[in-house]
């Protein structure tokens, strides 16, 4: 039976981390997706303030088609990649996603209805502009945090 020296074991642990990093990198949501969703959210907001049925209808249909196509492209991309093990994301990861969704949706609704109640013009445009900014800035930040969480939950990194 061969023996394993500490430096060999350390190298093996590094190999384990490298292999698991490949999985973490593969499941990241690309930056273009956040920008695409943000853009279409803003389009719907502007259309909602315009108020003409044809404009609102056209914006909603465009948004559904565009975001739908972007989501399908993303899912097809992700289908070719592995599905991560739930242990990798952990409670912190789930919490991060939940807080982000609640923050984005909550702030959008609060701003939109708040501005409308206050009688300030173009509330939907302002609300969706804030949402778009949150998505463009916050999306990649959330993804970065999730990546950090997944890496810290990788085997070979826990005590």
């Amino acid at each position, binding site marked *: 039976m061969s023996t394993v020296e500490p430096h060999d074991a350390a190298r*093996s642990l590094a190999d384990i981390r490298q292999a698991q990093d490949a999985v973490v990198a593969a499941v990241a949501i690309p930056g273009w997706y956040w920008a695409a969703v943000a853009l279409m959210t803003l389009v719907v907001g502007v259309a909602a303030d315009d108020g003409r049925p044809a404009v609102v209808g056209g914006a909603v249909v465009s948004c559904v088609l565009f975001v739908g196509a972007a989501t399908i492209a993303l899912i097809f991309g992700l289908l*070719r990649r*592995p*599905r991560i093990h739930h242990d990798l994301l952990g409670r912190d990861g789930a919490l991060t996603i939940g807080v982000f969704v609640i923050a984005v949706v909550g702030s959008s609704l609060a701003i939109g209805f708040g501005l409308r109640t206050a009688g300030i013009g173009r509330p939907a445009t302002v609300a969706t502009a804030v949402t778009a900014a949150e998505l463009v800035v916050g999306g990649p930040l959330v993804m970065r945090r999730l990546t950090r969480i*997944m890496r810290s939950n990788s085997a070979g990194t826990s005590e």
Partner: protein
Amino acid sequence: MKADGFDELIHAPTRLSIVSLLAATEWADFKFIRDSLDLSDSALSKQLAILEDAGYLQIRRAFVGKRPRTSARLTRDGRSAFDRHVAALQALVAPSGRSVAKR
């Protein structure tokens, strides 16, 4: 030096990389494993077969349209063996004073 839980079968470099990658996934596509680890089809098939024979791996063969699609995942035994192996490696490293704590 060896520690409890050290698994000779998993420790071979190529198999260690395969099992490490699968430990981070529910299911992983054959192509993804092959490309991530820069292995040939035959080398990967051979190692997957060894791990499957040991009961560490479950292989799923399906068709997407007319294309065959092979995926793999660790079994419960495989995941346990991997966890024990990682713990054994960490135990080997720890006395040397090198940190294996969370990054």
